[in-house]
């Protein structure tokens, strides 16, 4: 009975597979009919949020239908790009490099920032002062096992204990906002997220156990990327987006008051501009469109088997606007 019941399903699946066809690439034109831009929660996406709030893309390309999406991890955005539902994505360099390695065919439009990410231990875990104090059964919350948080932890584990996978069994995949809740509910001993979540946890009494710069030095946290197919098809659009990101980065650096105002408006005023200003001008946060530490990170990921190949130079990861800058 069971096998006989299974067969129609198998046939249906085979049929479905036959229907799915690879992507096609039409000729270049000015602007797409519709474009979905996806980013994630957190200060690391401020540049893109400012572009969104200013609405200049919409003004410049009135014929394009814009859809801005906030997804909770880089993998979801990468999967959306593979499935063709997202054209412009933003995320950390871990999922980006894995996607590049596996042939998603996307490249950087521009990095947005350099941020030091903290692993915060709960206030009632005073004995966990550094990585070596983490008990074997402690849970460390992170957005995903391929996130930059996990990669920098593995690098530190290799440097300090000779075993990059020392903490793999402690990692729990959890989105940043939920992780903050899980810390409050004592379901996680440690949480490695990003600004402003890490600051909120420290304000709640937590203490910093580890910082991501320890692993790879100053490194790019979030970037905006698109597929080469899309960039070739709509060069004007992608260039304009790059220019907008550039202007937003300048604003974050030289006019944090206005930037904070726009970011606050994006939350409908739920978070005050003053709070945002504190976060975007924090010591461990800088706004920088030059790629940092991609090659070092990729080399380490290759070393521990997360990547099959490494980029020979930074140009392999960049669209032409970046002119081969960075590492």
């Amino acid at each position, binding site marked *: *009975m*069971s*096998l*006989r019941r*299974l*067969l129609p399903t*198998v*046939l249906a699946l*085979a049929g479905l*597979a*036959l229907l*799915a066809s*690879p992507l096609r690439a039409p000729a270049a034109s000015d602007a797409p009919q519709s474009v979905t831009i996806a980013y994630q929660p957190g200060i690391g996406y401020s540049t893109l949020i400012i572009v969104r709030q200013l609405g200049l893309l919409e003004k410049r390309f009135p014929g394009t239908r814009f859809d801005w999406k906030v997804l909770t991890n880089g*993998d979801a955005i*990468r*999967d959306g790009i*593979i499935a063709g539902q997202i054209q412009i994505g933003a995320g950390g360099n871990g*999922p980006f490099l*894995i*996607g590049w390695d*596996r*042939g*998603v065919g996307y490249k950087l439009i521009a990095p947005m920032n350099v941020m030091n990410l903290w692993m915060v231990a709960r206030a009632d875990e005073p004995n966990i002062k550094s990585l070596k104090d983490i008990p074997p059964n402690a*849970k460390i919350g992170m957005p*995903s*096992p*391929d996130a930059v948080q996990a990669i920098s932890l593995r690098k530190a584990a290799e440097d300090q204990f000779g075993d990059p996978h020392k903490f*793999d*069994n*402690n*990692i*729990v*995949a*959890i989105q940043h906002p939920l992780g903050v809740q*899980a810390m409050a*509910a004592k*379901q*996680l001993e440690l949480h490695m997220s990003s600004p402003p979540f890490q600051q909120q946890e420290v304000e709640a009494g937590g203490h910093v156990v580890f910082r991501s710069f320890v692993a790879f030095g100053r490194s790019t946290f979030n970037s905006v990327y698109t597929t080469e197919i899309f960039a070739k098809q709509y060069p004007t659009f992608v260039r304009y987006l790059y220019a907008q990101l550039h202007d937003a980065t300048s604003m974050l650096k030289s006019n944090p008051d206005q930037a904070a105002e726009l970011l606050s408006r994006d939350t409908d005023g739920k978070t005050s501009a003053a709070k945002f200003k504190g976060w975007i001008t924090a010591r461990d946060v800088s706004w920088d469109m030059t790629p940092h530490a991609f090659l070092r990170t990729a080399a380490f990921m290759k070393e521990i088997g*997360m990547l099959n190949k490494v980029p020979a130079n930074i140009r392999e990861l960049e669209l032409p606007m970046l002119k081969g800058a960075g590492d």
Partner: protein
Amino acid sequence: MARVRRTLRLPAVVRYALLVAVILAIWQAYVTLGHVPSLLVASPLDVARAAWTDLKDGHLELATYNTLVNLVAGMLIGTLIGFALASFAVFSRTGQDLLTVLTAVFNPLPSIAILPLAMIWFGLQPKSIVFVVALATIWPVALNTDNGFRTINQTTQLAARNLGLRGWRLVTGVLLPAALPSIVTGVKAAWAFGWRTVVAAELIFGVAGSAGGLGWYINNARYYLNTSNIFAGLVVISVLGILVEGLFGFIERRTVVKWGMKRAG
């Protein structure tokens, strides 16, 4: 099933195997000749290679083991509670009402929908998964067992009561064996619900490394864009499903079919 004319006088197993081989060949040909990006669809050979690699280093066995532990624990708890509810319902009016009310409320709820609640109650632990699996299995067991108890031949029941059997002895000595076909159906349904629930729950939250099951294995492969490993996980889930169905068939043949309580299916 359709009335197939026996043009091919081959045993069923051989026919199935042939069909599977043909499907695999079409799949492989589609991937190789159709130039499908391996990112989207893995070929059967890639899947076999990925499965073999992860079997060799024990990854896949560990994931399967973790999933089965969660499933069995959840099903045991669920089945016991289901039995208890059904037995209580046989003996008392209140029990019957309780069963009616509880099944009316909980049976339509996909138990995976309870997972967010379980995560708050039990934390990010296998306990949460066991809880939702138990919840998924209680109702099919309770309903089918109750139905089995209720449809027992009146004569059998009266004879047992005349012999002075009461309470627990009545349940174990007469009701349980007589209701066995329904109970087996209930446990089978519970397994189907439980199996789907455990994999779905593991997909939603995973504890990396030692405690991760098959759902986590698949999700992890997705994080790393290892499409062939995603397929390998699916194949294991499917094969296990077939094996357990076979196990139930075997148990049925040895018990209810052999005793003439159910015709061979």
